[in-house]
């Protein structure tokens, strides 16, 4: 590897930081994010006890940001997994089988690209109602079009390779060819688009919760923390700044990681180690 891949290392560091925060929230947080409300402590600025200050109900913002990370990362990662599964199976099968199925999937992808995904997610949330499961479904169903595009174009170039024909003559079924011959050869671009997708899902979750359609209070998510803090922005800016910073760090981390992975997996950037 020539040169230092700053994106990869910085993105990886930020991502690991956020994931560790979410995983070890019960160990790190000194207060309960929901029930340790105390109006005597309301709107305190950051100090040694309340590292990020307190909100209007006197809850510790630091603890709430940590527990909010669990929600954001769950939503980001799980909805991106749903997106990847949908995008990969549609994209690979469309390109491999072609014909009317390809036309159908292409049309669907174009429609999905034309509708702003946040508006679409809003509509699904409005039907399903707020809550974590509907958030996962709404964001998992609306952001698969880029994955599908990339899977389709990768398959188109890969299926002309002789080893795919060889697998067919060796008796491999179509689904086995897709799983063993096509999928492993597109992990690079798919990994990149997935990390970028996690970033945008975290943002979308924040936006939906901010609009009151995501995680319902009093349970913390970065989006509904911002909603609550909006009215106090002049009196207690820390209640808004820290969840906002958390969103910023997480999205930046995943995007840098995606860019870094792209550089690392790009064969033109890679030199043989031997």
């Amino acid at each position, binding site marked *: 590897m020539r040169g230092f891949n700053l994106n990869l290392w910085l993105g990886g560091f930020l991502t690991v930081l956020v994931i560790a925060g979410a995983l070890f929230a019960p160990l790190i947080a000194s207060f309960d994010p929901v029930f340790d409300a105390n109006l005597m402590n309301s709107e305190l600025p950051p100090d040694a006890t309340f590292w990020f200050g307190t909100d209007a109900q006197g809850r510790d913002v630091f603890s709430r940001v940590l527990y909010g990370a669990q929600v954001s990362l769950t939503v980001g990662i799980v909805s991106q997994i749903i997106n990847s599964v949908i995008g990969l199976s549609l994209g690979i099968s469309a390109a491999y089988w072609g014909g009317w199925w390809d036309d159908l999937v292409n049309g669907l992808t174009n429609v999905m690209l034309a509708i702003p995904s946040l508006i679409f997610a809003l509509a699904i949330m409005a039907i399903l109602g707020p809550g974590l499961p509907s958030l996962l479904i709404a964001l998992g169903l609306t952001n698969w079009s880029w994955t599908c595009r990339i899977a389709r174009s990768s398959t188109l170039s890969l299926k002309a*390779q*002789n*080893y795919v*024909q*060889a*697998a*067919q*003559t*060796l*008796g*491999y*079924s179509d689904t*086995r060819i897709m799983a*063993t*011959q096509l999928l*492993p*050869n597109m992990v690079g671009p798919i990994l990149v688009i997935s990390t970028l997708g996690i970033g945008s899902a975290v943002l979308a979750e924040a936006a939906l919760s901010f609009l009151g359609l995501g995680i319902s209070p009093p349970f913390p998510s970065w989006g509904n923390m911002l909603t609550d803090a909006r009215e106090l922005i002049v009196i207690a800016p820390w209640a808004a700044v820290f969840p906002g910073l958390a969103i910023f760090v997480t999205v930046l981390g995943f995007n840098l990681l995606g860019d870094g992975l792209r550089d690392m997996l790009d064969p033109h950037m890679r030199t043989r180690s031997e």
Partner: protein
Amino acid sequence: MKDTGAQPILDIRDLHVHFPIGNQFFTRNKRTLHAVSGVNLSLGEGECLSVVGESGCGKSTTALAVMGLQEPTSGDILFEGNSIIGEAAPSRMDRARIAQMVFQDPYASLNPRQTVRSSLSGPLRLHGVTAKSELDDRIADILKKVDLRPEHAARFPHEFSGGQRQRIGIARALVLNPRILMLDEPVSALDVSVRAQIINLLLDLQEELSLSFIMISHDLGVVEHMSDRVAVMYFGQIVELGRWDAIFANPTHPYTRKLIATIPDPDTVLHPNRKSALAKNPPPPQGYRFYPQSIGRPDVYAEPEKSELVELEPGHFIRCQAV
């Protein structure tokens, strides 16, 4: 030349492959490309049949049809007397034991993300070999057959040279013990120094495993060395078919003569007659004229004219039109 009096192992009957050209929505004048127009070929047990001709003459399309990778427009392909296309086609699993293919490009023919071991164990597992000891034995055995070492199994394709990769490709083609090997330009992507090794390996394997070969090639030197019979294809049709010695010593059809005249021949001392023999064209058989008459750029979208294969001497056919 082996005895081919018995039933052929593979029989291609009046094979046609046509491709529709043009988008159905935006162009009204849909055209049909006649890639293969009425090919009849039979492959004897243990025989090596070469199909030669220029790029685009339909030889690869014929090969793909035999492999089940291209649906023919019409015609039939019989394996040991049973049809293997259309409704009677065997499943992909059964077909895998009939014929396997060795590809031209050893770099595109191996999955870069699979070790040699998993390239070979995948098909074996699929076909019911699941015990680890048996898998190991079969893989070691097949690697030995193609002169690779057992420890090569753990490596990825990019760790091998072109010649070694082609050996892996041959090993993969043989791992299910097929009866027929389709060789699509098996050595033309390799270094000249490696070609002879691969050719000799293929000939040894043919004898050891009693395989039948169909070889697609435009390297006439390799064809002359390996084949029992040669079929010369030109724009979707066979124009000359015969034993290799008849084709190379006594090429009759104008296209075959042109093709053979292109072989660079440094040792005219050894073949003093070849160049001079090619200079004067033999006449077509009585009552016929050669078809196609002129070698240029035929219209691939048009149905070829009616013509037939005329037997010049036993087993030696040329394409002619009655006058």
